[in-house]
């Protein structure tokens, strides 16, 4: 099915490329995952920044959501799964919880992508706000379930608000990145 409109999200169906082309392509696809990886490593280091423990999942969640609906080839489900697992291993959340929640966020972005892409930025932000709030509440609920007693809600809300706040600057950065990459691809 060599339909030119499909090229953007089905990168395998393309004319044969040289090795350097392929390497460059691979690097571009890995860029968002590498970014998240770097954020996880950097923000789990003992830096004297306030709220750093909540900022890391917030940034990762916003990044995963953005790439899931704008360019799923840059953020495949497998990468999301491993990112979540990595986050669990590095942080102190129960093993697998972050992976599960990030996959849910990714799934929402992926299945609603055609609707989301057509939306105005503010509306997309609103959708993300709802998703982030839901994800944080789900994480809190799971944590409560595993500890078998009620935990404090304010840190969860703080994390949700941080994710909502982190989304616009991150989306500006990634939009600029997408323009640059697309411009290069057309050259």
């Amino acid at each position, binding site marked *: 099915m060599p339909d030119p409109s499909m090229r953007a999200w089905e990168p395998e169906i393309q004319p044969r490329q040289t090795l350097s082309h392929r390497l460059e392509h691979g690097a571009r696809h890995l860029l968002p995952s590498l970014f998240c990886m770097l954020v996880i490593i950097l923000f*789990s280091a*003992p*830096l004297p920044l306030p709220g750093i423990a909540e900022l890391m999942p917030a940034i990762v969640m916003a990044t995963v959501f953005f790439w899931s609906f704008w360019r799923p080839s840059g953020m495949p489900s497998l990468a999301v799964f491993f990112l979540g*697992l990595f986050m669990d291993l*590095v942080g102190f959340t129960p*093993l697998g*919880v972050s992976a599960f929640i990030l996959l849910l966020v990714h*799934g929402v972005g992926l299945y609603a992508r055609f609707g989301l892409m057509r939306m105005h930025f503010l509306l997309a932000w609103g959708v993300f706000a709802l998703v982030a709030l839901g994800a944080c509440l789900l994480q809190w609920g799971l944590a409560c379930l595993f500890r078998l007693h009620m935990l404090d809600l304010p840190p969860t809300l703080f994390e949700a608000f941080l994710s909502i706040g982190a989304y616009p600057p991150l989306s500006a950065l990634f939009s600029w990145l997408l323009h640059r990459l697309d411009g290069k691809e057309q050259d």
Partner: protein
Amino acid sequence: MIPVSIQIRQALGKLVLPLLLLLSIGIIIVGQADRKLADRVRMVVADGLSPFWTLVSTTQERTVAIATNLREAGRLARENARLKTENENLRRWYDVAVSLTRENDSLKTALHWIPEPAPAFVTGRVVADTGGIYARAVLLVAGTESGVEVGNIALASNGLAGRVTETGAHSARILLITDIASRLPVMLEGSHAPAIMVGDNSPMPRLMYYAQDTRPVEGERVVTSDQAGAFPAGLPIGTVHYVSEGRPVVAPFAQLDHLNLLRVFNFGHSQVEPPDAPGHVPLAPPHKAQDLPFKNLLGQG
């Protein structure tokens, strides 16, 4: 790559997400069931990442150190500029002082000035803060063997501390100027007016018996007076401070609450004994008459 048709590949692609979700739920359950395993995996990952974290925290520490150093350098530059101007100022004062000293010397030569004898002194360490009948007294490790005598004057590094009241062979008790038994004749340096400085066991002794037309001025220097003959004139004591209206006290220069070393000066017979006037018969030996207020001042009377 295995050659499969696009339809199958798309179908597989749609299955990836649910499968991964199930897998993560499985991991959650396994992690809850076997916490030791989860912790072990966590430790392996942390071990692997520790070089990165070390790198990050080292970079952060270096950055903080560099920033601190830069701030410190800025502060030092400001301090340096301040010190330079102060140094220039002081150099000017030094020149003034040298020229004044020369002028003073030449004037003294011209006037055939008789020089005062330089006082002998010993320095001792303060070992105890209290003792004896006084509330504000210290014990000094220097006694009669070192030449310390009753009535000698103890100076701290920058001002008068007190007087020797009792001496042993290797120790001497010094009554501080803040003790309630201490009453010294002093002179207000600005107006040359006499006053009495009365200790009251507080850190700042009171000023009393000053002339009503020459009241102490806030910040005025207070020095010793040779009126009773107990002290040579002009030893610095402190500055005038008003704690309330009409209640002047002296803030001593010496830090009397933590004395460490004291110099004990022997000014000799500072009181000038007047020669016998011909035709005048003294009622008592003159030195005894001179000694009386001196002993009173030492708190024995």
